[in-house]
């Protein structure tokens, strides 16, 4: 990075943070710290909901997902518009009517304390672990940009986020998120335009899409009914609806965002803003990854985008086997490159047979190159367990650092940090709020004053930040960050959603029935996760359905037992 990059990076980050501190300087009350000032307009809510979900992982890892697997990942968002309509129509009015701080307060009112605590515990466990993954993403950026040890960057960036969140609270999160999102969008649009600009001369729009399609990168919709296939239209529409319903409707990090709205109207419009924007946004981020893939068909990519693996190769020049992989990969890439140039010429000349033959040759060379990459990856993981490849997460940052001009690099690194700060702050804020309101104030210190609760919230926020850092130190073990976050959520969200579905719609079911049903359903999901290799998008649907059905069954059973007991007594 150059001096210009540092000026852009530090200027944008400090400017936004300083504005947040200045704007919220008078906020000292518990209500404002937890929910904001309850005057937030729909556009700010919409951006805040978007920024909370769109962490640094979204902007760092999703282009890598597009680079490796194409557009298919967009199907995970097919359930989002439906889920947000249900939340706007049903969930949001319920939460606002009871004027709750957290979604789990509603469970306590509707059922009992133990069910409220169960809902809180499910949220805290999965969001606490998920927070670790979102801290990991900006650490990758730091480690790659400055060549610092990854553990050091995880701890340092994690501590920065903790201080930022503890100082600001919910109001600061909402106030700064819109500006952070502006930096993020400016960075992503600039990157998109520059990728298009850097594609070879003579490669038209349709040529680019034909090339990407030939490599199966534009398969956005797959109507397969195979439940083992991870991303299909059906898993996205059905499973994705439940996943998104649970995330936006029961995860406190999101509920807290729209509960701060000035009115029901503002909250609803904020959610509808996301229902409209989210699929196009994810599509363009994935398409950015696909365009980077096309770019690297004409430019030599590294054997591994993950710099730690490249550093290993550089540090071991005598390791002939690994260097042979690198040479072989480059040679095959050159072959594929030449074939693609022949394909382009034949395509422009209208020679279909020659074009098809050249493209087939390019595909073969590309596949052989991928085989070499896999072999090299296996060899490296046998040599050192710490050099496991999570290459997808490094594709975009490597492209930025090596291909984009100075100033833009600083803007994009600022975008990653903006995304990390905004989503991380919202998560930690929600974790701290929920621990205080649902555990501390409801069990340990019922007579806590608002001032005492405010202090407790700040301590709990810091505690969850440290838990997230500890988990982030092990995040290199996951295959791909954007998938890992969704897999983690899918395991817990179904049962959380089940609790709320029973609460909203099945009025005759009581606390004990839903509590035991939720525990059994969660155990079932764990069992399925380890034994049944189906797409993770189905777990929220299965978890929710199991919780609801078991609740109805158990309620009937408890009722029958109670009636039998009454008859025996009389």
């Amino acid at each position, binding site marked *: 990075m150059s001096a210009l990059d540092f000026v852009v990076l530090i200027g944008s980050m400090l400017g936004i943070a300083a504005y947040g501190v200045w704007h919220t300087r008078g906020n000292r009350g518990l209500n404002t710290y937890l929910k904001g000032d309850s005057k937030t307009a729909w556009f700010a809510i919409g951006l805040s909901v978007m920024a909370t979900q769109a962490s640094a992982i979204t902007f760092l890892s999703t282009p890598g997902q597009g680079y490796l697997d194409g*557009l298919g990942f*967009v199907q995970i968002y*097919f359930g989002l*518009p*439906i889920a*947000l*309509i249900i939340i*706007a*129509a049903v969930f949001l*009015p319920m939460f*606002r*009517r*009871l*004027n*709750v701080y957290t979604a789990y*307060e509603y469970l306590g*009112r509707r059922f009992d304390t133990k069910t409220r605590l169960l809902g809180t515990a499910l949220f805290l466990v999965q969001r606490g672990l998920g927070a670790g993954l979102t801290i990991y993403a900006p650490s990758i950026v730091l480690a790659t940009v400055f060549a610092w040890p990854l553990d050091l960057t995880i701890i340092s960036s994690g501590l920065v986020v903790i201080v930022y969140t503890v100082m600001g609270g919910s109001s600061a999160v909402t106030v700064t998120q819109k500006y952070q999102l502006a930096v993020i969008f400016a960075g992503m649009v600039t990157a998109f335009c520059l990728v298009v600009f850097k594609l070879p001369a003579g490669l038209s729009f349709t040529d680019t*899409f*034909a090339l*990407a*399609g*030939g490599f*199966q990168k*534009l*398969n*956005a*919709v*797959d109507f397969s009914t195979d439940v083992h296939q991870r991303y299909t239209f059906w898993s996205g529409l059905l499973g994705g609806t439940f996943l998104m319903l649970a995330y936006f409707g029961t995860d406190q990090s999101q509920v807290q965002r729209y509960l701060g709205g000035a*009115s*029901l*109207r503002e909250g*609803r*419009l904020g959610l*509808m803003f996301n*229902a*409209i924007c989210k*699929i*196009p946004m994810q*599509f363009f981020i994935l398409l950015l990854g696909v365009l980077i893939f096309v770019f690297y068909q004409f430019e030599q990519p590294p054997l591994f985008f993950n710099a730690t693996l490249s550093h290993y190769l550089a540090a071991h020049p005598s390791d002939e086997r690994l260097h042979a992989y690198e040479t072989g990969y480059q040679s095959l890439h050159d072959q594929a490159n030449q074939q693609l140039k022949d394909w382009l010429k034949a395509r422009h000349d209208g020679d279909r047979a020659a074009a098809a033959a050249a493209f087939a040759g390019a595909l073969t060379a590309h596949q052989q190159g991928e085989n070499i990459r896999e072999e090299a990856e296996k060899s490296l993981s046998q040599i050192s367990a710490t050099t496991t490849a999570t290459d997808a997460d490094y594709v975009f940052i490597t492209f930025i650092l090596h291909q984009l001009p100075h100033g833009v690099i600083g803007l994009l690194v600022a975008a990653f940090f903006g995304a990390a700060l905004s989503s991380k702050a919202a998560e930690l804020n929600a974790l701290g709020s929920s621990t205080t309101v649902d555990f501390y104030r409801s069990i340990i210190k019922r007579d806590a004053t608002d001032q005492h609760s405010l202090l407790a919230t700040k301590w709990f926020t810091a505690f969850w930040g440290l838990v997230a850092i500890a988990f982030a130190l092990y995040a290199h073990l996951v295959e791909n960050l954007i998938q890992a976050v969704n897999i983690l959520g899918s395991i817990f969200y179904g049962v959380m959603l089940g609790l709320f579905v029973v609460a909203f719609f099945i009025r005759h079911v009581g606390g004990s029935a839903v509590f035991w049903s939720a525990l059994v359903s969660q155990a079932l999901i764990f069992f399925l996760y380890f034994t049944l290799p189906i797409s993770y998008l189905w777990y929220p649907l299965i978890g929710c359905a199991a919780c609801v059905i078991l609740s109805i069954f158990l309620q009937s059973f408890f009722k029958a037992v109670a009636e039998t007991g009454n008859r025996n007594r009389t």
Partner: protein
Amino acid sequence: MKPSTANESVESEADETGLPWLRTWNQVYLLVIIHFAIWILLLVALTDCFS
């Protein structure tokens, strides 16, 4: 949990969307569904054209 009378009076006013062309929430939800359907059709067309 806090009393909710003030909130309820605000919420009763929120039945209207305040948007110029979409006066009821059902119209807003319908617009979202139509937008979603159009995107699905575009993505299906993209998949069919280039794979």
